[in-house]
């Protein structure tokens, strides 16, 4: 079955679910994806009227992690009396993971949320496609069979779908929102119990085998175009601090300039803050205007917490995330010891 047919089916089901939720007044607002105004994009949308339900879409370009809109931000999702709005949220696997993790961190209350679960089969790597097309203008992007078809003024190019999806989607184990007893009530769509989370992180082996100098040079080259617009941070559902460490000015911890060392420190500390929290949605890489691919760092975060603490973020709502807890018997092979 072609991807486009599957997506169409999902889209129809999703609209149906969303319509029912709104009609039955189970939710006040639906957060989902709408068609973007430029090719290779999609736009988040908040729907309160039933007529707008048909604007909801589902395809392989829905890269934003919608959980971002539920974390405390201004304007808040509240009604005029100050009560929380009930929200229906279109969730692919990583949105579901983000919701669960945010609930664990007590940032959101799953009672106010209905998860419209969707089985996702991967998000197109926009930057990779753009780079292949080069300076020609893309006018239309669609999935057909097992290909991504990119059309322009006088060209049409096909890319194999499996190759041109995000690196994180290639190794994704959580295609639809995970569920357990405590959140099953919130799920109205296709949510699944996820059990197989084994990962050998083979994709990291090559990089990790490099010498310090090679790694540093790679990171330098990777991040040198960063303009520090903070789109990565703002698109990240886990970056909800009122004041980001990089914006603190009493004291100024780290430079705000675009000198390479400052850029690297920003990404280093941001990665540090996401350890055990990152849900590997890849939104940060998808939104970067300069096309920086942060997936490598994301994978490393996953690997560290998986191997060291046997934890995968956003799967169950019971276990405390590793950086919020401790254990007397933690590994400490990195500590300096006498010979």
């Amino acid at each position: 079955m072609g991807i486009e047919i599957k997506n169409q089916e999902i889209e129809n089901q999703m609209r149906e679910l969303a319509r029912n939720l709104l009609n039955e007044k189970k939710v006040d607002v639906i957060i989902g994806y709408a068609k973007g105004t430029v090719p290779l994009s999609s736009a988040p949308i908040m729907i309160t009227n039933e007529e707008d339900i048909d604007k909801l879409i589902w395809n392989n370009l829905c890269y934003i992690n919608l959980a971002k809109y539920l974390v405390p931000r201004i304007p808040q999702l509240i009604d005029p009396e100050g009560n929380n709005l009930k929200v229906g949220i279109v969730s692919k696997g990583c949105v579901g993971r983000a919701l669960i993790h945010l609930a664990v961190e007590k940032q959101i209350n799953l009672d106010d949320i209905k998860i419209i679960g969707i089985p996702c089969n991967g998000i197109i790597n926009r930057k990779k496609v753009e780079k292949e097309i080069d300076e020609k203008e893309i006018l239309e992007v669609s999935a057909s069979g097992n290909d991504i078809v990119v059309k322009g003024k006088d060209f049409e190019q096909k890319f194999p779908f499996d190759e041109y999806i995000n690196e994180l989607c290639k190794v994704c184990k959580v295609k639809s929102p995970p569920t357990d007893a405590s959140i099953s009530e919130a799920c109205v769509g296709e949510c699944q119990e996820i059990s197989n989370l084994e990962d050998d992180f083979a994709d990291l082996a090559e990089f990790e085998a490099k010498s310090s100098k090679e790694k540093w040079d790679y990171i330098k080259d990777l991040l040198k175009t960063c303009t520090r617009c903070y789109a990565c941070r703002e698109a990240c559902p886990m970056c909800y601090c009122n004041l980001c460490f990089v914006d603190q000015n009493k004291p100024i911890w780290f430079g705000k300039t675009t000198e390479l060392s400052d850029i690297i420190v920003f990404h280093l500390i941001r990665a540090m803050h996401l350890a055990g929290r990152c849900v590997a949605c890849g939104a940060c890489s998808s939104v970067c205007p300069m096309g920086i691919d942060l997936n490598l760092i994301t994978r490393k975060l996953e690997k560290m917490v998986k191997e060291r603490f046997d934890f995968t973020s956003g799967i169950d709502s019971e276990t405390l995330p590793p950086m919020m807890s401790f254990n007397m018997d933690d590994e400490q092979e990195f500590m300096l010891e006498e010979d």
Partner: protein
Amino acid sequence: MDQKILMKNEIGKLYIELAEEYNFYAPVKEKGNIVFKKILNPDDIVLEYFNSKVPPKEVLFPEMEVLFEYSLDGKDVEIQDRQDLDEKNVIFGIRPCDAHGFALMATFFTAHGDCEDEIFMKKRANTILMGIGCNEPKSTCFCTSLGGHPFQKDDLDVMLTDLGEKYLVETISEKGKTFIQKLKWLADAKKKDVQQAQELSKKSEESFVTKLDLTDIDKILDPNFEHPIWKEISDICISCGTCSYLCPTCTCFDVIDETDEYNNRGRRIRIWDTCQSCLYTLHTSGHNPRNSCIERCRNRIMHKFSYYPKNYDQIGCVGCGRCVQLCPVNNDIRAILTKIKNIEKEEEISA
């Protein structure tokens, strides 16, 4: 107006001749993105491009710019001012919209009486803009809706038109005229070439997909400052700085002092800032007049389409379409403007 011909294979020659006297900036490809960089090797210059990702404003108004440095010796302070402001620059291949962006920036940086931005203005005065008209505008371009044109000449010193194998070179300003006269080896243009350029210009203008009617947009914006439409517009905004960092007219900057106490020195730098960040307006008291995306999104639109016309008699947007292409959540400024335009119509209907 002088009209000359520059063959595309003569770009290297042009570079070699100019590089001695000028810093030669041109589009290059860096990590898949077109950017304007100082050229060290003429082979790096990319001629087949639509437009740069980061606007060429970064040449004269870089993301990070040292204003001055100081060093301490006991109680003596020595301040070193910028030495490079008198260097001459050429920006080759700038698009007319971005050149208009420079004009708008210059208006802003000189508009406040005595406190003109010396660094920017000095650099601007020492810079020659060699623009290339857009033969094939993208569907996201909308300069024609803002009084611009893909072959707008007003803000350039020298205008180039891509005729396939060669460029038609037209001098626009006095500065451009003396500049081109020095390049004696340029052949004179034939009538045929000029005609071809005019045809291209017409064809390009006709190919515009996006056409917005922005007449009196400021008159609609002002009374609707509190309109609920702002909430609708800002619902999905995530408050990143992409739109303003990649805007050829955004001029906001933040000033930072860095000290290096280990070496007894320090420096004052300015970096780009964005009105989309909540820190932009945060007061020391903790009060923030633009606390939510609603106010911040509104500010961006109001600044470009209401405050600019009011203060400087022109719209503060050039229609390059960068924010349309690269907004992470696809909050399309064209759609926003259409929505605002529709307020008026809706009011007429209800009245």
